[in-house]
């Protein structure tokens, strides 16, 4: 347990220090949202309708772009070998790595969301459903993403491959997350159903992804 906490603390610290992935991910999130908005044009009613989907896809891309970092640096400086050989239960360590990734990218993305939502003219009653859906869904994104990062850690430039692998696995979370945000804003009865399914998807990945990551990391050891 202490080891897991140490890994989380170390990864989060590294992510927020110079050269870390946190700030670039948030900046990328902001840039992609603004580009979407520019492409959609200045129609404010249209904008408030598509604000939540834009933010959800933006958060998804921003998560995706930072996935390569999860195991890359550890492998380059050799600490991944130590982690794999000394972890009592590698799946728990993989879960800690995913948790650290969520704390250093998912959480900052959620914190940045209200600001971007203002720019996108999001309706005031849509804020809570959007933030809640992101809060429940983004841990799932980090978990699935850390699995893809573990699969491709031995490859030199894996970002493109990670996107191909991760996109189909992300789609259920994207559908339920954006669905919950839309239903909540409209006060539709599917709100609770979508949130529950989103939570179920995240919990399910919380079980599967660490085990799969551990198997992938072991297969990637030389």
């Amino acid at each position, binding site marked *: 347990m202490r080891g897991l906490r140490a890994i989380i603390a170390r990864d989060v610290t590294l992510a927020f220090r110079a050269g870390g992935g946190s700030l670039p991910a948030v900046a990328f999130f902001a840039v992609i949202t603004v580009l979407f908005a520019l492409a959609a044009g200045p129609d404010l009613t249209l904008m408030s309708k598509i604000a939540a989907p834009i933010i959800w896809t933006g958060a998804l891309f921003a998560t995706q772009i930072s996935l390569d970092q999860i195991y890359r640096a550890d492998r380059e400086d050799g600490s991944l070998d130590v982690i794999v050989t000394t972890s009592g239960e590698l799946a728990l360590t993989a879960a800690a790595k995913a948790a650290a990734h969520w704390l250093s990218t998912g959480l900052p993305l959620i914190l940045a969301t209200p600001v971007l939502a203002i720019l996108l003219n999001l309706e005031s009653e849509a804020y809570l459903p959007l933030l809640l859906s992101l809060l429940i869904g983004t841990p799932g994104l980090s978990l699935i993403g850390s699995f893809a990062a573990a699969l491709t850690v031995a490859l030199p430039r894996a970002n493109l491959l990670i996107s191909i692998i991760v996109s189909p696995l992300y789609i259920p979370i994207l559908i339920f997350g954006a669905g919950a945000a839309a239903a909540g804003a409209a006060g539709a009865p599917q709100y609770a159903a979508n949130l529950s399914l989103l939570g179920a998807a995240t919990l399910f990945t919380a079980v*599967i992804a660490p085990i799969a990551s551990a198997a992938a990391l072991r*297969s990637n050891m030389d």
Partner: protein
Amino acid sequence: MPSLYEFANPVLFERWARPAIPWLAGATALMIFAGLYYALFNSPADYQQGDSVRIMYVHVPAAWMALFCYSVIAISSAVGFIWKHPLADVAAKEAAPIGAGFTFLALFTGSLWGKPMWGAWWAWDARLTSVLILFFLYLGYMAIWRAFDDKARAARLAAILAIVGFVNIPIIKFSVDWWNSLHQPASVFRAGGPSIHPSMLPPLFLMAGAYMSFFGAALLQSMRNELSARRQARLERTDVKAASTLVEQ
């Protein structure tokens, strides 16, 4: 009854697979001609869809095969991962392009059917979306195989991905039942014409049988190709090694 492990021997596999391929190919040809004849000339037009219903005979079995091929990949991957069965890895690898082909065929014919029936090439309904996800899963699986030079490592990593992705198969299978409440029922009747006319069943099953034996023939042949490609690579490597030791002497 030969055990699973005897088929791990490529020579035995070759002895068994080689004569099976012409039979499977012949069965494919027979069933596809009979099935297409029934489907195009000797089955009734639908009272609502008219002749467009005939697309179904190509489309529905292709969608079945899309799910079936992924199941073959996932099960072979599990066998390969757990028992290190080398032929299971080869089977999983070679089933992927065939399955992706069937998935594409299902999507393509579905969209051809959707244009006159729904008035749109594509609808973002649960079934269509989940089959599209399946297509991307196939692509990701094939991309993993291509990314690694080391075949043994590629096999293990691709197997892990295939097993994780298998979660999607029941979602696709039951998407039509689960998401009824959220979607227009218009998309459901295709699966639900609960009393599909009995005269439509023979061509449907003939086409399904044709696809199935095609899958068998194509899979065995591409497994044979992959095995000989690996043998060739191994021989070339030993040749190079032998040559370099000669030079050193």
